[in-house]
């Protein structure tokens, strides 16, 4: 098992280094392409939510990404300092195909085994993503 803690400030430019680092970790642990892409997509959606809707792009607020990689499961906790809004995030969905936003939560759910939204007493939101590794199994999605 390997656990990594990554912390980023809430600016648009943080997304790329976060994904670069995550991709490198998944490669380092020989995670297959399919699992890596699914996990990166789920984490990127949670990260974007934290950046835009939780921390509202305030650079003084941090986004913490905890990554846990083991032989069977990939886990990530993406934690914002947004002080509330879990219900709003969970309910978000595009009002029509022509909406520019609102697809993130659906994509997160599609490409992971389980997603949980937990708000602490301060209102900070943790999005917990869990993906059972498929590796050499037949991909059915």
């Amino acid at each position, binding site marked *: 098992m390997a656990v990594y803690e990554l912390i980023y400030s809430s600016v648009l430019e943080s997304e*790329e280094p976060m994904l670069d680092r995550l991709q490198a970790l998944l490669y380092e642990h020989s995670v297959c392409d399919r699992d890596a892409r699914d996990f990166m997509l789920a984490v990127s959606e949670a990260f974007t939510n934290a950046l*835009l809707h939780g921390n509202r792009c305030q650079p003084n607020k941090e986004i913490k990404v905890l990554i846990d990689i083991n032989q069977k499961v990939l886990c990530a906790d993406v934690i914002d300092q947004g002080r509330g809004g879990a219900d709003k995030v969970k309910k978000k969905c595009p009002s029509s195909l*022509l909406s520019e936003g609102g697809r993130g939560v659906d994509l997160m759910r599609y490409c992971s085994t389980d997603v949980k939204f937990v708000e602490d007493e301060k209102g900070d939101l943790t999005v917990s993503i869990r993906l059972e590794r498929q590796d050499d199994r037949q991909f059915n999605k």
Partner: protein
Amino acid sequence: MEMSMRERDGVAIVDLNGRLDLSSGTALKERVKSLFEQEKMSIHLNLSQVEFINSSGLGSLVSIMKETRLRKGRLTLSDLASYVQEIFDITQLTNIFEIFPTEKEALSSYQPVATN
């Protein structure tokens, strides 16, 4: 993400390479906006080198498509990698974009059909 520009038979072609996400999606919107300012209303995006797309990247493409329609222009996409195609499928965006298997087919669709 890297972006490069070409033009063929009046169609502006943008080659995308890398991840299409929040920051690169914003950059892409700016790039296409500059094409509109040059009166280029036929836009083709070649996604063959796009290895990753998320909802922010999809949102950018939807925004570009809406702006193109508003300007009475046309937007086409081609060469989606299987994973990117899957993301379009599950979000049902295949229903609103003109997506072609290859750039050649996309560009052919811009040519007027000969009639007798």
